[in-house]
């Protein structure tokens, strides 16, 4: 089974600064995608082009994903800024677990085709944990 769980950190406008900081701490490297470089740029606020839509950080000691954030989950310092990204090789398994997590919780984004490939959905379970589910 190659399902992978990594933290997804929302940094609300400080993503690139934070990535540089984590790079100075852990070494490693990161790749990032700016809003302006995505097919959905025209759906975003005009001043958000430079914001980081998605970044992936890899090092020997830490691996995680990050973003400047989005509208689905507004800034809430009390709720924290870390979600869990769960990537499945097995789509059937991923959908089953997505639906099970949604019981008593809230589907923030139903699983649907993602412009970056594969399918993607978000669910906030009944305990408040946000899961970002990636399936083929």
């Amino acid at each position, binding site marked *: *089974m190659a399902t992978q*769980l*990594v*933290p997804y950190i929302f940094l609300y406008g400080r993503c690139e600064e934070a990535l540089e900081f984590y790079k100075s701490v852990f070494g490693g490297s990161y790749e990032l995608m700016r809003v302006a470089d995505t097919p959905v740029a025209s759906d975003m606020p005009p001043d958000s082009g430079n914001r980081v839509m998605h970044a992936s950080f890899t090092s*020997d*000691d*830490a*691996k*995680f994903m990050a973003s400047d954030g989005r509208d689905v989950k507004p800034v809430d310092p009390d709720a924290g800024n*870390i979600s*869990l990204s769960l990537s499945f090789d097995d789509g059937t*398994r991923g959908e089953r*677990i997505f639906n*099970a*997590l949604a019981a008593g919780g809230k589907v923030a984004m139903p699983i649907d085709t993602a412009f970056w490939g594969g399918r993607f959905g978000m669910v906030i*379970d*009944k*305990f408040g*944990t946000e899961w970002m589910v990636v399936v083929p």
Partner: protein
Amino acid sequence: MGKITPFLWFDGKAEEAANFYVSIFDNAKILNVSRYAEDSPGPEGTALNGGPH
């Protein structure tokens, strides 16, 4: 290689949450539960470390 393991906080519902996740994920089990003692800083009987793997 190091690995980040998320540590989730549940404000008194950790055990309920862990049991929920065990019911969802395959081959999941709670490895151990450590509870706050009567005279510790946390509320008695709360907190948990473990969960789905």
